[in-house]
């Protein structure tokens, strides 16, 4: 293999491994929930085994030894689990979830050393879980079944186990004989699986030589079911299907042992009445027209998705931007022609064509934006694992309720959102939700509820994180702020309830005196707020003592195209993302004061530091304009007013990177093309506010760097 092929295959491996790990995580969460409810689907456990097994296989092939070793260790555990040699306990689930975390980390870095995973310790944990449970098997009930060795000899270990386990539990085994067209076999089998699922379990499919021809195949499907032959026949209702029970040799079945896993379908149904002889063939006729379109279905069942690098989409978006500029050039041209004698007709035609062009361009742009969207469900699953882990670490019981996981957000935003959300959730469980005992004393249900709710609201997406915990006391928050030296007692006393809640976003604020392992990772809610502001979003908090706390995050749907306020400073235009703009006010020079060498303004009782963009960017002008404006921005707990000469209104803009040579120029999020050959720099408000407020001189950003 050449190097190029190698790296391409490696990417392919990483992408595939990522998908497997995501599926693994999903299945694990389902099993975790099922375990709590005492009804685990063995198929689901087998699915998890298969995922890890596949992961191990591909890791070995692509030489990712760390993932391979990890998968190998987990595979043994899962093998025992699916063969029911050990029971599915919360401890076993802990280890499995830990395994998923390790996989995730390994996929992000390149090898185990960088990921900082202690494999030995993990292997030991697996050993402990395995050691804590013994296992044993007795007698072979399969011998009682009237099944040829030719059938038994083609069962895999797992299938044999499922068959044995069903026989032991007294579940009936049936042979379902089907003749299916080869061409549409996939859809026919999906259909069969769906019909069998509510009434039983498919053990295996045995292709048979008899009765097949070039276009058809005859299959024998072994099904375990507690239903009667008639009920099973009615449930399956396949054309040309024949069903017969597999007879039992000898008399008394082994008494069913207590199963470690329960089949949902077994719970309600009474034990099966053994069927002694062959009954009549159950051949129910399906409703007319039911299986007409198998052929079409199977042809369509090929995968219809492609993976696309987000940079390719950025490139397309840039091309759209270029097209928009070309379009405005054409508009100008057609306007010019209109005033030229004899060319009016031509100008009108051009104008009409141009309108069609504009419409299609807009559609193209929306299409690209749409492709970038991914459902928030992706991070919600990750968060569900965090919830489980943090709750267990703290001895708290938390039920996670998720709504709106299908809500879509730009891929880049989703990536950046997981850290802030994780932090809020850790906080909610650590500080918000009380221990079961405390909750009972407060006459609340012992299991706390954490609700994640997402929905779209116009061009924004709202994510709410709500807990039913202890809530926050504004008075305590005020006192803490004073103790931390963030506010004077007088200033603290003046804060409204809402302002007091917002104190948690102030740098250096932490409501608990001891920093716990979980929330205290060196970041506070101020970082959360800043990170969300970077995404052009805002975060709000509401709380009620004893009832709970609710965080509301409002984000733009995409970063590829944002709404911006266009302003002019000296002779240049700048774009300020609208999400960073609180308000714009008329600048009154008289109101300016100087505090510690800085210009400030008192706005509705609060002090607002002022930044003169012309000075900051070194833009000279012949004379001070008579009238100026202040654009008021808020990032985290900090506010800042930017002095500008003119407000030019709002516009949707595509932000383009400044390119590698200007990467070091701080204070700009990029540039945008406004059409009409006008270019504006996009102001990175969070960066400016942060740096200016923390006293850093950005250095003067000179206009020489761009033109």
């Amino acid at each position, binding site marked *: *293999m050449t190097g190029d*092929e190698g790296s391409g*295959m490696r990417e*392919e491996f990483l992408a595939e491994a990522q998908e497997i790990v995501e599926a693994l995580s999903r299945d694990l969460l389902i099993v975790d929930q099922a375990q709590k409810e005492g009804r685990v689907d063995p198929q689901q456990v087998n699915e998890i085994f*298969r995922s890890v*097994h*596949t992961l*191990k*296989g*591909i*890791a*070995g*092939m*692509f030489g990712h030894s760390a993932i*391979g070793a990890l998968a190998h260790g987990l*595979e*043994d555990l899962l*093998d025992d689990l699916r063969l029911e040699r050990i029971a599915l306990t919360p401890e076993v689930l802990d280890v499995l979830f830990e395994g998923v975390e390790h996989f995730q980390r390994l996929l992000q870095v390149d090898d185990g050393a960088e990921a900082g995973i202690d494999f030995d310790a993990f292997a030991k944990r697996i050993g402990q879980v395995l050691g804590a449970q013994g296992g044993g098997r007795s007698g072979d009930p399969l011998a009682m079944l009237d099944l040829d060795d*030719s059938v038994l*000899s*083609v*069962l*895999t*270990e*797992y*299938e*044999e186990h499922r068959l044995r386990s069903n026989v032991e539990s007294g579940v009936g085994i049936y042979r379902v004989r089907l003749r299916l067209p*080869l*061409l549409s*076999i*996939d859809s026919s*089998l999906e259909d069969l699986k769906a019909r069998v699922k509510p009434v039983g379990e498919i053990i*295996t*499919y*045995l*292709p048979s*030589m008899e009765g097949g021809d*070039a276009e058809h*195949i005859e299959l024998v499907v072994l099904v375990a079911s507690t239903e009667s032959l008639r009920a099973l026949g009615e449930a399956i209702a396949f054309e040309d299907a024949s069903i017969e029970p597999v007879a039992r040799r000898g008399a008394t079945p082994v008494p069913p042992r207590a199963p470690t896993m329960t089949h949902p379908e077994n719970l309600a149904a009474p034990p099966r009445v053994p069927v002694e002889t062959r009954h009549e063939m159950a051949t129910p006729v399906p409703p007319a027209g039911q299986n007409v379109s198998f052929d079409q279905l199977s042809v369509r069942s090929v995968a219809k998705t492609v993976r696309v690098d987000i940079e390719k989409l950025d490139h397309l978006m840039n091309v759209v931007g270029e097209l928009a500029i070309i379009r405005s050039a054409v508009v100008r041209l057609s306007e010019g022609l209109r005033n030229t004698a004899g060319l009016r007709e031509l100008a009108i035609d051009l104008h009409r064509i141009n309108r069609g062009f504009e419409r299609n361009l807009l559609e193209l742009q929306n299409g690209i934006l749409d492709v970038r969207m991914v459902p928030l469900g992706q991070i919600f699953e990750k968060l569900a694992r965090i919830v489980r882990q943090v709750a267990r670490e703290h001895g708290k019981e938390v039920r996670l309720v998720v709504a709106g996981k299908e809500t879509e957000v730009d891929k880049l935003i989703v990536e950046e959102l997981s850290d802030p959300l994780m932090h809020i959730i850790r906080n909610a469980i650590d500080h918000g939700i009380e221990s079961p005992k405390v909750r009972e004393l407060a006459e609340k249900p012992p299991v706390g509820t954490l609700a994640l709710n997402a929905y779209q609201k116009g061009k924004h997406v709202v994510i709410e994180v709500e807990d039913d915990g202890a809530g926050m006391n504004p008075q305590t928050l005020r006192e803490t702020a004073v103790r931390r030296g963030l506010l004077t007692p007088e200033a603290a006393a003046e804060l409204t309830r809402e302002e007091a809640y917002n104190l948690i976003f102030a740098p250096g604020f932490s409501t608990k005196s001891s920093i716990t392992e979980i929330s205290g990772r060196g970041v506070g809610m101020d970082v959360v707020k800043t990170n969300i502001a970077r995404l052009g979003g805002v975060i709000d908090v509401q709380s009620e003592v004893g009832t709970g706390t609710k965080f509301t995050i409002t984000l733009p749907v995409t970063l590829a195209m944002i709404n911006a306020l266009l302003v002019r400073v000296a002779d240049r235009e700048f774009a300020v993302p609208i999400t960073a703009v609180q308000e714009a006010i008329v600048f009154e020079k008289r109101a300016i004061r100087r505090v510690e060498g800085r210009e400030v303004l008192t706005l509705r009782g609060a002090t607002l530091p002022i930044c003169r963009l012309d000075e900051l960017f070194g833009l000279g002008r012949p004379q001070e304009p008579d009238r100026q404006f202040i654009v008021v921005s808020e990032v985290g707990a900090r506010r800042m007013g930017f002095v500008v000469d003119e407000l030019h209104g709002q516009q949707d803009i595509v932000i383009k990177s400044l390119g590698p040579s200007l990467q070091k120029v701080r204070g700009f999020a990029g540039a945008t093309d406004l059409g009409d050959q006008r270019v504006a720099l996009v102001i990175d408000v969070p960066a400016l506010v942060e740096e200016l407020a923390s006293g850093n001189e950005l250095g003067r950003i000179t206009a020489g760097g761009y033109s």
Partner: protein
Amino acid sequence: MRAFVRAVLEEWGDAEVVEAASGFEALRVLPREAFDVAIVDVNMPDINGLELVSFMRKSAAHAKTPVLMISTEAAHTDRERGLALGANGYLSKPFTAEALREKVGEILPGRREG
């Protein structure tokens, strides 16, 4: 996984590789063509690899097609059953490109190794 096997074989021996994502897909492909070798994973989503081997051995067209089974080293029973059913070789996952080439070379009649 299949992509890996395909890449290895194509590069190695200018082979024409036909992939099947499941046992049933294999059933669909098998009657239509003759193969020099079949590489069969025991754990397939629907019909398992053992059944596929058994089916091949019973069919006139593929009674003699060399079969290489793939599974985990842990599954001894699967390995024994596979060989008993008429598989010509067995390879446990994970395996290297070299191991695959070697095994295929072993079971491929009249083919020089390497």
